[in-house]
């Protein structure tokens, strides 16, 4: 037998002598490790899910909205003052580099009626750049074109859910719907993207921004510029968001004539920033879940210690015999430490398998009806195994010391 295998074989022999007891000990570690793996896989899964949602929206996106202004004088709450304009958007696309698309838009709530069906929808007035900014594809028909926008055409592109609700069974493209007091023609249907925490484009009703302004609201600033509610910008490459945010902030501050001490009258957020915030939050969440599960691992470790203490007492005579045969204290130490480390490592291995299985089941079945993706990654598995060996050594320490320090004569006399 290979020399380094011998202590392991001896430990295995020792564990096998008491199969039931060893199994119960292992069970505590199995449950602990399985819980760590399963819970952390859920945490990682949630994180991956959110990030892929953002990815589908376009992680190069920057959105600018008017700043919340907190009214002084008693009324609690915040309201936003319309400060962004079409002209701001035009200036950005002319003067800021590393920008692919600048898409200003506004919205208005209107009733949509087709035959006997009607839905209340948020109508968004967009420019053709909106398609590039939000990564939109049409499943049928076409997106709003430059020509549609310039001419203020009474056309709309609708999301998949809206199409479903209004036109069940009918091909929506070419159909006319009533929107408020106007009649509008459906020119395209967006590809479904599923829902995300950012709202769903499946519920969108898009019309040219020019049409929205002419038909429903014609808001202008005191200087005569056309007000929009949001400006979306796509950055040319990942990692450029900070640069573009800085440039846009400078440009808008000068256009809005803000003095150097004054707060921005707009708020600007990049997806990159959001992604890093979410990664951080969900990382913390994952750790937290892992820490909760680690408590059960700790309990498992105490179980190992308990069993090892019993085992030391039970094998007092064996320890005495080994000492009489010349075993040094460190021989006894390593014998018991190897045994407890082996027990908990075995528990760790089984726990990884069980936890992995559990996370597969969770991602298949979901939790309380809602879908759940889980991700088991190598680092968690390695960590869990290392921790379980560590627990074996840590909680085997006291019993092993007790065994090593037994007086050989008393140990030999022990019945």
């Amino acid at each position, binding site marked *: 037998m290979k020399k380094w295998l*011998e202590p392991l074989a001896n430990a295995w*022999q*020792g564990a096998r*002598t008491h199969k039931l007891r060893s199994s119960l000990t292992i069970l505590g570690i199995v449950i602990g490790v399985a819980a760590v793996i399963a819970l952390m896989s859920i945490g990682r899964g949630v994180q991956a899910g959110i990030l892929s949602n953002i990815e589908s929206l376009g992680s190069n996106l920057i959105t600018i909205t008017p700043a919340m202004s907190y009214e002084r004088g008693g009324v609690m709450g915040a309201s936003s003052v319309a400060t962004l304009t079409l002209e701001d958007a035009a200036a950005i696309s002319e003067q800021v580099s590393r920008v692919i698309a600048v898409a200003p838009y506004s919205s208005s709530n209107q009733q949509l009626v087709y035959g006997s069906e009607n839905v209340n929808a948020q109508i968004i007035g967009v420019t053709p750049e909106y398609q590039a900014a939000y990564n939109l594809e049409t499943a049928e028909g076409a997106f709003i074109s430059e020509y549609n926008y310039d001419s203020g055409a009474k056309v709309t592109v609708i999301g998949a859910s809206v199409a479903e609700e209004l036109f069940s069974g009918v091909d929506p493209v070419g159909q006319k719907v009533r929107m408020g007091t106007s009649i509008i023609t459906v020119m395209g249907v967006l590809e479904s993207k599923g829902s995300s925490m950012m709202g769903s484009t499946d519920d969108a009703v898009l019309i040219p921004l020019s049409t929205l302004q002419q038909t429903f609201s014609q808001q202008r600033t005191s200087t005569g510029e056309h007000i929009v509610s949001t400006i979306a910008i796509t950055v040319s490459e990942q990692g450029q968001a900070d640069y573009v945010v800085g440039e846009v902030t400078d440009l808008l501050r000068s256009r809005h004539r803000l003095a150097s001490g004054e707060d921005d009258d707009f708020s600007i957020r990049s997806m990159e920033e959001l992604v890093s915030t979410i990664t951080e939050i969900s990382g913390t969440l994952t750790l937290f879940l892992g820490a909760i599960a680690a408590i059960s691992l700790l309990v498992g470790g105490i179980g190992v210690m308990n069993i090892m203490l019993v085992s030391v007492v039970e094998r007092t*005579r*064996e320890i*005495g*015999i*080994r*000492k*009489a*045969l*010349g*075993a*040094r*204290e460190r*021989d006894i130490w390593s014998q018991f430490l190897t045994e407890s480390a082996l027990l908990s490592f075995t528990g760790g291995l089984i726990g990884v398998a069980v936890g992995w299985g559990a996370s597969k089941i969770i991602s298949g079945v979901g939790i309380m009806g809602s879908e759940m993706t889980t991700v088991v990654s190598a680092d968690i598995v390695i960590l869990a195994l290392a921790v379980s060996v560590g627990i074996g050594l840590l909680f085997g320490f006291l019993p092993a010391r007790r065994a090593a320090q037994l007086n*050989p*004569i008393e140990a*030999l006399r022990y019945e």
Partner: protein
Amino acid sequence: MIRLRDIAKVYPMGNRELEVLRGVNLHVKQGEMVAIMGPSGSGKTTMLNLIGCLDVPTSGSYYLENREVSCLSRGELAQVRANKIGFIFQSYNLLPQLSALANVELGMKYAGGIDSEKAMTALARVGLSGRANHKPSELSGGEQQRVSIARALVKNPPLILADEPTGNLDSHTSEEIMAMLTTLHNEQNNTLVMITHEADIAHYCQHIIHFKDGQIEWEEAV
């Protein structure tokens, strides 16, 4: 080989002290076969444990192969036990979960490492090569004691200590075991110190020590 000078061993018993050995002086020559006799409770086992480095004397000095061992640390004592001493116990003290062969191998484990061939040879010398894979519970008392003799002899230590090795055996088996011990002792030429109650067992030895109340009462050389 063994030289004891004014060895005393005192056990604290509550607030009193129990003097188990009081001034033992002994000289055992290399290659001798020694029997220790005496009434129960006279301190024979205590003295054998001291000679076997399982315990240290309260006072006095003990030289083993001209080296003073009464002042060694626990780790050094373990090394002496591993390399110099083989024990044979009255109750065999085999590990129940191990086979006969593995029990013999255990005798080498702490003395330089296991050599399965040597262990098999040792088992053959006590006539048990056919029982190598039997657990102690599957062997008779005499066979178990033979396994324990093989375990003590397998590392060929200079000193063999036996505490009533035939105490649990019937007289016929006792004679077999003693014949075997004598033969092996003559072959390996190591020193053997043995505690026994029975005079006819003691007469296998050349040197008999009579013990009483923690002292040597008298010695005889045969």
